[in-house]
């Protein structure tokens, strides 16, 4: 009998060894494949249930926070300011994933990127064991109060406002109408999320793609800033050329003419053309410059490249290749005034203003100010860096003068942006969309001698009334934003990371 009992013991050990082998197979060999299986929600749930830090505005208002729940997903993401910051913070939805800063800074917020440190305190040891409070909060460069001003200015209208600090690239405000409430697709009621998501995607204007940095329009006359810079950079001789007074410019290779808006007559030298935004003059400048110079200058300002902003899926602004103009000279004239195939995001046009404001440099645009850990200590601060060396300080100084004249000169198109005691430099744009509507643009920076804010405003699809609509419709919005920021009523306690 004992022999059988011993054999039985060996048999049972063999069975347990088989279990051990199977465990090895599942936990080590097949673990990766099982983890990657689309049916496996562990990773998604784990990612979703990790504690997430807050997103806070530069002036200390909580924009996104996690509230503990009793359900499987453990935390509910809340956006106390609703739609106001939807296009910056993005959303954090169990079904639809994440967007905006929630997406870019996911690993920072959950703390999975924070460096491992040996615990030095009891609470540190606890954090190590629980793997819980590694979450970090991020403070944005965006100001709640300035965002409110932008929202208020756009009230009831479709449009976008982008304001940034030209010295650092810090985004101060970025708001678009229409917008959506990120709470509505981040709840734990998945059916409601789906219904809301469907409703949002059916809204006109592609609300889920933040217009400020993912949607493009004809920049219209605001592009003349680039055309003018090209003159200083590539053909300075043109600065002294006097262009004839015309209401329509005959174009090469065609019988068509480039008409001024409403048949207006204008002409003169570059400063005059710029001040009144003379289309016939700039059409001819484009032809004089040539496609190569204009394309080089547009690329120098960041066209045809994705701006390295710390938000996902930013769109490129588009300027045609030089070769495309060889057999199509009329296009060159139209491109010089920001029409035809030229497309730009509001962010890109704000960067154009910032390039002039920051003496020919574009700083990398960003929304991140600094990162704090769960003990509210600053872990890291965003270090501003140059994105593009666009042009010389001399050209920028010349351009500043032109843009001041748009605001100051009695016949300037941007006089509505005048602010008592502050010199504003600007350029208007009234892009024809070809559907009888216009896109009203305004780009500006201030104070002109030492700029601290650059703004771009677009109001697409406005009824076409006159050629100054960029100045009448968009300029007051930019003015209000600049005024609010410079008056200090919407400025951060300390300017974030100013050099």
């Amino acid at each position, binding site marked *: 009998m004992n022999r059988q009992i011993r054999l039985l013991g060996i048999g049972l050990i063999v069975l347990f060894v088989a279990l051990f082998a199977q465990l090895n197979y599942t*936990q080590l060999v097949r*673990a990766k494949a099982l983890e990657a299986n689309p*049916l496996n929600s562990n990773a998604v749930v784990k990612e979703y249930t990790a504690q997430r830090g807050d997103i806070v505005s530069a002036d200390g208002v909580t924009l996104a926070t996690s509230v503990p729940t009793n359900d499987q997903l453990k935390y509910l993401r809340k956006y106390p300011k609703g739609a106001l910051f939807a296009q910056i913070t993005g959303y954090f939805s169990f079904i639809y994933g994440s967007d905006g800063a929630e997406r870019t800074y996911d690993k920072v917020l959950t703390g999975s990127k924070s460096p491992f440190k040996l615990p030095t305190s009891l609470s540190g040891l606890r954090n190590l064991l629980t793997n819980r409070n590694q979450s970090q909060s991020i403070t944005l460069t965006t100001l709640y109060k300035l965002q409110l001003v932008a929202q208020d200015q756009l009230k009831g209208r479709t449009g976008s406002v982008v304001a940034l600090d030209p010295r650092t690239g810090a985004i101060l405000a970025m708001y678009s109408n229409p917008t959506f409430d990120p709470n509505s697709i981040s709840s734990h009621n998945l059916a409601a999320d789906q219904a809301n998501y469907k409703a949002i995607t059916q809204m006109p204007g592609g609300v889920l793609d933040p217009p400020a940095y993912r949607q493009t329009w004809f920049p219209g006359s605001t592009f003349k800033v680039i055309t003018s810079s090209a003159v200083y950079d590539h053909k300075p001789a043109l600065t002294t050329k006097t262009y004839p007074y015309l209401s329509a410019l005959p174009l090469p290779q065609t019988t068509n003419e480039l008409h001024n808006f409403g048949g207006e007559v204008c002409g003169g030298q570059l400063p005059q053309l710029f001040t009144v935004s003379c289309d016939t003059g700039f059409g001819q400048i484009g032809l004089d410059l040539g496609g190569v110079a204009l394309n080089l200058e547009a690329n120098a300002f960041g066209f045809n490249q994705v701006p390295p902003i710390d938000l996902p899926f930013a769109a490129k602004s588009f300027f045609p290749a030089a070769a495309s103009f060889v057999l199509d000279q009329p296009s060159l004239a139209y491109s010089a005034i920001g029409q035809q195939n030229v497309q730009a995001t509001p962010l890109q046009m704000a960067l154009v203003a910032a390039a002039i404001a920051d003496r020919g440099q574009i700083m990398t645009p960003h929304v991140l100010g600094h990162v704090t850990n769960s003990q509210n200590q600053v872990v890291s601060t965003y270090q501003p860096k140059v994105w593009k060396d666009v042009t010389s300080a001399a050209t920028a100084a010349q351009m500043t003068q032109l843009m001041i004249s748009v605001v100051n000169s009695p016949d300037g198109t941007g006089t509505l942006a005048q602010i008592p005691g502050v010199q504003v430099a600007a350029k208007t744009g009234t892009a024809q969309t070809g559907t009888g509507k216009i896109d009203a643009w305004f780009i500006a920076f201030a104070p002109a001698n030492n700029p601290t804010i650059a703004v771009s405003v677009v109001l697409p699809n406005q009824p076409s009334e006159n050629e100054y609509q960029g100045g009448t419709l968009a300029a007051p919005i930019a003015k209000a934003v600049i005024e609010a920021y410079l008056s200090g009523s919407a400025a951060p306690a300390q300017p974030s990371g100013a050099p």
Partner: protein
Amino acid sequence: MTRAPARRRTELGLIFLVVILTGGLYALAGLGKAGNLPANMGPFLVIIFGLLLIGHLAMRRLAPNADPILLPTAGLLNGIGYVFIARLSTHEARLQAVWTAAGIGAFVATLALVKRARDLERFRYTFAFLGIGLLLLPLLPHLGEDINGARLWIHVGSFNFQPGEIAKLALAIFFASVLVERADLLSKGTRRVGRFLVLDPRYLAPILAAWGLSLVIFLAENDLGSSFLFFALFIGLLWVATGRAYYLGLGAVLFAIGSFLALKVIGHAHSRVQSWLDPWAHPSTTGYQIIQGQFAIAAGGLFGQGPGQSNASHIPEASTDLIFAVIAAELGLVGATALLLGYILMVGSGLRIAVRCERQFEKLLATGLSLILGVQTFVIVAGVTRLIPLTGVTLPFVSYGGSSLIANYILLALLLRISHDTETPRLVEQAFDVELRGVTA
């Protein structure tokens, strides 16, 4: 009172170790899940130590010379099980604590009632009827209840009980006593069929009847895991008692026939096998449980995600059938292996007790009890890890469930009783030996 035997002092030391280990695990699970220590940390430590101390003191009085490893190991498994149940459901944890106390109570009562293991032999038919009666209980109308397609439960008021768990022990006692009595007859063929001597079916009849009846009952109740366990127990004991390997062959043949019939007749069995072979065919219905178990185990990796830190809320039957998957997810390969080693330790100790026995009945009973423990553990762990089809038996001492816990503590008490009976004469002999040597020196 005289000084406690060394074995009891070892046991007490091991119990301290168990309290430290489970207390640490409980603290970690609380930290992992909620971010702070469990509120009832103090009571938890007091209760687990108190219960094991009661078991230990009962041993000092009632079975002082028994094996010192079994009780602490069972306590460790029970403690680990409790931690994971508490991590899954506070409600079930509270009940499990009560069941654990009841289990220790049953443990002490068994030690007190069964003064000598050999006394059980006399009541063999009582145990046979008790076992079969208990198996039949869930089939009674109004009393029985279907849970997950298996009719294993009786409920009285709000109280659920799985009588099959106790029935296993009663039938193991019956098998052991009958097989001992007839071992000689069963090991030698008395009838000649052609060139072979085969067994006279007369001698096998009562056993075959008991086995067949209980198999039928198990199948009627759809409890495939228990039928397999029962079958393995029967064949194993037959082989150990007779020393004839052809019983193993016979068992394999009978098993094949039984499986074939079960697959044909019982839809439940068919779907279990289907979802074992290809759980991905129906990932959200029949395959769901297996697949979620696989995902959880895989997520554990080498060292696990940490107690309380995996996402176990969507695993079906996480506190009973699939508790091993949760443990594998949170303690990893290392922790799951350690748990398996705990079972090997218990089964090994049980078989060692069997080997050291001098009387046949106790030897066979200890073997049977160890076999129940080992095979049941294998059946559920292999099912969860997808080595064999998943059937719903409990993981001894770990899974949530009162009947299982009580039955396993009774099993433990019987093993320890046998161990004490075996060791006591040996110790007396040794002591006598020493005394004599003292005189001659």
